[in-house]
């Protein structure tokens, strides 16, 4: 059974976790701070999207669609405010991801590192796709879809998620 990492389970078998209010505010804030601070010194870090990873983590752990989409929307809008682009681009993308991740968290077990890597890489692609479509079609921003770069970024974010989720697991509490 140990090699069957992704298994469809009944809703009752999946444990739902919650977080204290301090963690719920502090972790996204820290993620946004690191995301804004580090790329100014090392631009390569911008390939990672820590706010996205935090959104996915909270969504799949809480397993509440409403909480997931609201977490994604708030983190995305704050991230938008740090850019010079229109506010709502990251908001929409992360709302979709938050909703999707929480929906997936209800259906499958995402405690395994392999699952986490795949789920995060997949949602990173979803995030980039939504961002690309909205920016190009609503705002008319001339964006290029770079396949190699996007796939590499998805993989790197997946690897980072494995490490980050293991750290954040320490803060979750069973309901």
């Amino acid at each position, binding site marked *: 059974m140990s090699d069957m990492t992704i298994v469809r389970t009944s809703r009752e078998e999946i444990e739902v976790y919650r977080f204290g209010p301090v963690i719920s505010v502090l972790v996204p804030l820290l993620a946004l*701070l690191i995301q804004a601070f580090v*790329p100014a010194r090392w631009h390569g870090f911008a390939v990672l999207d820590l706010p996205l990873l935090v959104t996915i983590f909270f969504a799949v752990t809480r397993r509440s669609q*409403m909480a997931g989409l609201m977490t994604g929307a708030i983190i995305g809008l704050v991230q938008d*405010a740090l850019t010079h682009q*229109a506010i709502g681009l*990251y908001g929409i993308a992360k709302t979709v991801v938050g909703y999707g991740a929480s929906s997936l968290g209800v259906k499958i077990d995402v405690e395994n590192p392999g699952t986490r890597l795949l789920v995060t890489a997949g949602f990173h692609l979803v995030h980039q796709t939504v961002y690309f479509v909205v920016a190009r079609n*609503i705002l008319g921003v001339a964006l290029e879809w770079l396949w190699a770069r996007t796939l590499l970024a998805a993989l790197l974010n997946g690897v980072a998620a494995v490490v980050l989720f293991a750290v954040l697991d320490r803060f979750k509490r069973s309901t």
Partner: protein
Amino acid sequence: MENFFSRYRNASLLMLVLFAQVMGLAVQVKRTETGGTRLLRFWVVNAIAPLEKSLVSTSHGVGNVWRNYVYLRGVRHENRDLREQVERLRIEQVRLSEDAAQARRLQALLGFKEQFISQTVAAQVIGSSGSDQSHLVYIDKGSSNGIKPDMAVITPDGIVGKVLSVYHGYSQVLLINDPSSGVGAILESSRLQGILQGTAAGETMLKYVMSDEKVVAGERVLTSGGDRIFPKGLPVGAVQQTNPGSDLFLNIRVKPAADLGRLEEVLVVTRVVETTPSTAEPSGPVRAADILAERLPSVPQKAPAGSAVGAATKPTTNVTTPSNSTAPSSAAGAQPSKPGAVQSQTAGGDATTKPAVAAPKPATANTGGATPDTAATKPAAKPVTTTPPAKTSGAATADGAATKPAVVKPAATKPAGSGDVGKPKPTKSAGQPPKPATPPPPPPGEEISR
């Protein structure tokens, strides 16, 4: 209906949130950044930026202790290398000053106006957008330091970007590799002009250079001054690769001179002065015979009225004196300011002036910990007066502390031929080239309004 919403409550909420954000985007497309959008940005920046600033201060403090007190390995070797470099640069400076003087004479003859940076504010980079789609950085200087939108941001290596949004203590700087950025640029040797734009991948491309032109890799790219943001002649980068484009233009990839991925300190150009160079500026050491010739009575030459040469040899007199600005001040004990000089002030309070005719390089701002503003050094009240700033300590020139230099009116500021020139007093100082007995009048400036 009620049953439908209760059954699909989460999906309905998702649609509602998405709809609200799409509507928000649609509103922003139509109007400029005002109202709620501005407010959210204001809140977020004012919440995140102080944390970033404290992080930068802490890391600089730790770094300084390590570098200045603990890790001093290789300092002797580095010192020797730097001394050799100084010697090389001195030799180069002699040659360049000759070229510069010649260029000034030619510019004056042709009636060209040249721009030079007269005031900068040193700032530290405290953060970024953190996004690959938005290439911008935050600096720790804002409206309280005299920063305004559309001001040029540079480093000693080259241009960085322009100020996009200004808050009270912070500013957003749009980097030149952002797709929405545009800089007027010119190739140094071929003199081909184009527009430097960023790409989604964070590269910089020189566009609108015709495909039948020959552009070689390695050629330097400078600002053309056509964008009215960056003064002409600042280094932009070097041509990295050239490919024929799909249309009539070449695809020229440019490697920026400034390392945009590792920015720490930058200079914001707060004032640019436009001036017509004067041919009266001496180019080298003054001979005794020249001084004697000036003292002796001579028959004044009558230049024909409206003569191009006669007009060009006199500096332009249409001086626009802003309320708080005049001609650039020179370093304490140094020569009077020359056109094309970039002036900044280091942490120690020393103002450094570098000649920069074709490609002015700003003085490196040593802004470890505190970054004193060059804006703090108030120039003289009259544009015709050269005002060396008083030498002050770093603490005295900290933010907000305006340093008013003593106003010095050298007799040499009067045009040649006036009575004061009869008793020249050449200044002599160790390690400096001989100074002219009659320093030229400082260039009358015309500030470019932003």
